[in-house]
């Protein structure tokens, strides 16, 4: 039993490691050259889109233009989806209006629009009681590609900033990166993955809810729809918002252990491959591998922590029963290993598509998910954004290292001066600022506490912090004890999502622009050994300490206190 769990974790990590070089190489080709066969087929379409946009794909853009493009693409998505959600009641097509029991209030529409346009896909609604199939497709699926693609474009702009050899303010062309990322990576992969999912049982049809008479009589209303289209891109684009309310736990969305495993690979493989793209484009593959190794270490520790926490015997279960993990909120087909894998991959991967209900996880198990999100999702992380977060930590790490050994800090031949450090620290502070301030407001106001209902004491505090961490980290998973569909929660979580998406991205673009304007100094005996295991260790501790010190109090008040109170 336990050995097969271990084998599943090992198989996953091995496949990710094996995919990193080919994926990293392919990404470099997509964004700097020629995507091969796909480009032959889709090149005319690509050029047509540029003509419609009125952009020259070869024209470089500085960091401010890039940041504007990133923000405006997000706002266009928000506005479009907001409008679509407000009119969806009057749109034709299944499911019938009488099945759509959740009213689409303006605050829920705004929250949902911001949520999907920022790649958070926090869902204060249930898919099957709220949305028409047409909105799931034109609204949610489109945002999956748009938010995933813009995140990837952000990642590529940052890589170019670190990799530039000459002094240039240009970080490539944002629109070209977006269009090429969608056409040559996300769209073909999503189509393949979605077909594989359907083969395993994920539903993909356009019909209304089906009222049927179960085997022993009575009635059952079966929600169906084009789920596979969304399920594939929600993982590839690291968005996470599922077709059904139960998301990755729903058997018509995630029907077998294999679909779960493929979905988790889809979350991790591209962000992991980007570390190799980084290594290739900076011509320092060793530095790329150090980032990969630190990510893998963080990911593996998360697997171990969550596995141990969820194996421990639960206080809720009386002694009369067989030993075993607490299966409240979990699915039999996944067992412990696939549940843990999904928990760690989604909480690290800016992707809320959990295969179980995190709200029923043990205190420390929920704490592991929370910690992963508070780290800023750097263990492979979101599409593009995971690498950016790790590079920000690397800048802080060389700064700390430089202070310790009394040498002027530099990373890959680029000096880390006061300006760069300020930007990286600002990036690192957005998360604690957003989460701690909003959580304090929520627990000290009646409107905030009104969302807390079912669970006792310290768990409620964890649920609040979890919600804001999930939104600020653009993750989207939630502990179900919190009823978040109220104006207070819809608006404050939307604010957290906006800060977590556009605040961090603007600082990352600015840092990339500042680095790009520096000439790259050749390697010398005085260079910092950023491709060494020693630097990997420093980076690991930087990630843990910067986060740990910011969030230690809330982690103690939430998960740790709850765990101690249960003994």
């Amino acid at each position: 039993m336990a050995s097969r769990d271990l084998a599943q974790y090992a198989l996953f990590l091995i496949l990710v490691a094996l995919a990193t070089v080919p994926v990293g190489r392919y990404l470099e080709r997509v964004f700097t050259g020629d995507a091969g066969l796909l480009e032959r087929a889709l090149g005319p379409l690509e050029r047509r889109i540029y003509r419609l946009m009125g952009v020259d794909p070869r024209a470089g853009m500085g960091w401010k233009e890039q940041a504007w493009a990133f923000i405006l693409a997000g706002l266009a998505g928000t506005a479009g989806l907001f409008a679509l959600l407000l009119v969806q009641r009057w749109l034709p097509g299944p499911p019938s209006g009488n099945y759509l029991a959740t009213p689409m209030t303006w605050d829920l529409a705004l929250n949902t629009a911001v949520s999907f346009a920022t790649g958070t896909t926090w869902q204060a609604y249930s898919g099957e009681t709220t949305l028409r199939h047409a909105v799931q497709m034109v609204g949610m699926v489109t945002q999956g590609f748009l938010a995933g693609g813009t995140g990837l474009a952000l990642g590529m702009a940052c890589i170019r900033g670190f990799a530039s050899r000459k002094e240039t303010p240009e970080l490539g062309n944002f629109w070209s990166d977006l269009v090429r990322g969608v056409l040559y990576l996300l769209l073909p992969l999503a189509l393949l993955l979605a077909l594989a999912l359907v083969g395993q049982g994920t539903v993909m049809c356009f019909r209304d809810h089906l009222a049927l008479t179960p085997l022993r009589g009575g009635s059952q209303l079966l929600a169906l729809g084009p789920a596979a289209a969304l399920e594939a891109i929600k993982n590839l684009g690291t968005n996470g918002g599922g077709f059904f309310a139960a998301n990755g736990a729903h058997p018509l969305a995630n029907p077998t252990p294999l679909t779960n495993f493929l979905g988790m690979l889809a979350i991790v493989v591209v962000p992991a491959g980007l570390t190799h793209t980084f290594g290739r484009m900076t011509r320092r593959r060793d530095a790329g591998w150090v980032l990969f190794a630190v990510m893998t270490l963080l990911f593996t520790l998360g697997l171990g922590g969550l596995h141990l926490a969820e194996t421990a015997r639960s206080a809720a279960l009386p002694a009369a029963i067989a030993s075993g993990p607490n299966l409240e909120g979990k699915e039999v087909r996944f067992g412990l290993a696939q549940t843990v894998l999904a928990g760690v991959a989604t909480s690290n991967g800016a992707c809320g598509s959990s295969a179980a209900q995190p709200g029923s996880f043990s205190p420390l198990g929920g704490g592991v998910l929370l910690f992963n999100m508070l780290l800023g999702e750097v263990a492979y992380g979101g599409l593009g954004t995971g690498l950016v977060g790790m590079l920000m930590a690397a800048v802080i790490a060389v700064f700390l290292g430089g202070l310790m050994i009394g040498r002027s800090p530099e990373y890959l031949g680029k000096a880390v001066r006061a300006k760069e450090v300020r930007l990286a620290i600002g990036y690192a502070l957005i998360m604690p600022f957003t989460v701690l301030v909003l959580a304090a407001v929520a627990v000290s106001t009646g409107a905030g506490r009104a969302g807390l209902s079912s669970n006792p004491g310290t768990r409620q505090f964890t649920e609040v912090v979890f919600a804001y961490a999930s939104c600020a980290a653009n993750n989207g998973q939630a502990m179900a004890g919190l009823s978040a569909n109220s104006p207070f929660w819809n608006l404050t979580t939307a604010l957290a999502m906006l800060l977590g998406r556009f605040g961090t991205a603007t600082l990352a673009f600015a840092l990339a622009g500042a680095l790009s304007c520096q000439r790259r100094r050749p390697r010398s005996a005085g260079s910092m050994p950023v491709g060494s295991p020693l630097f990997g260790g420093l980076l690991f501790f930087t990630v843990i300490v910067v986060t740990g010190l910011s969030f230690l109090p809330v982690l103690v008040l939430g998960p740790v206190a709850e765990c101690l109170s249960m003994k």
Partner: protein
Amino acid sequence: MNPQVRPALIAFLALSVLTGVAYPLVLGGLAWMAFPDQAAGSLLRKDGRVVGSRLIGQGFTGPGDFWGRPSATVGPDAGPLPYDAANSGGSGLSPGNPGLRRAVEARVAALRLADPEQPGPIPVDLITASGSGLDPHISPDAARYQVHRVARARGLREAQVQALVRRETEGPQLGILGDARVNVLELNLALDAIQGK
């Protein structure tokens, strides 16, 4: 006007057409050709009538049926409606919640009452609600736990029912992924079949 506004709007519109309309329609067509049953929701028919989806559990309660897991789904009137496949979800109850402990104790009592002669330990999945509320599976242990009751109610030999459970047990996928499991609806259909119902 900021020069990035036009490309941003076009990017949104172009992706809406390409990924919001073309991609799902092409996928729907391919899925319908390659996997028509799965794409339509893996519906199961008996005597020509749809009796459920292979992937969606049903709330069996009769003594002659295998029972699935408890379900925490909520109906349209906000009251409990187990296995409501139009409103999926789990309980959201934390392990320390006294409500969860009470629910578990009530489920244990109900199982003991249904079969007082079955003294064995009760498998965890039979007393905890699933994440989706629609879990179609139980563990092989949970099926074996119910064999005595089902065999007696149906007038079958225990060995016969035991053999059927073994036949209906799916191992880990590809020999490694996930856990062994039994599909409750299919198991009950198989039971009906051997009795010619």
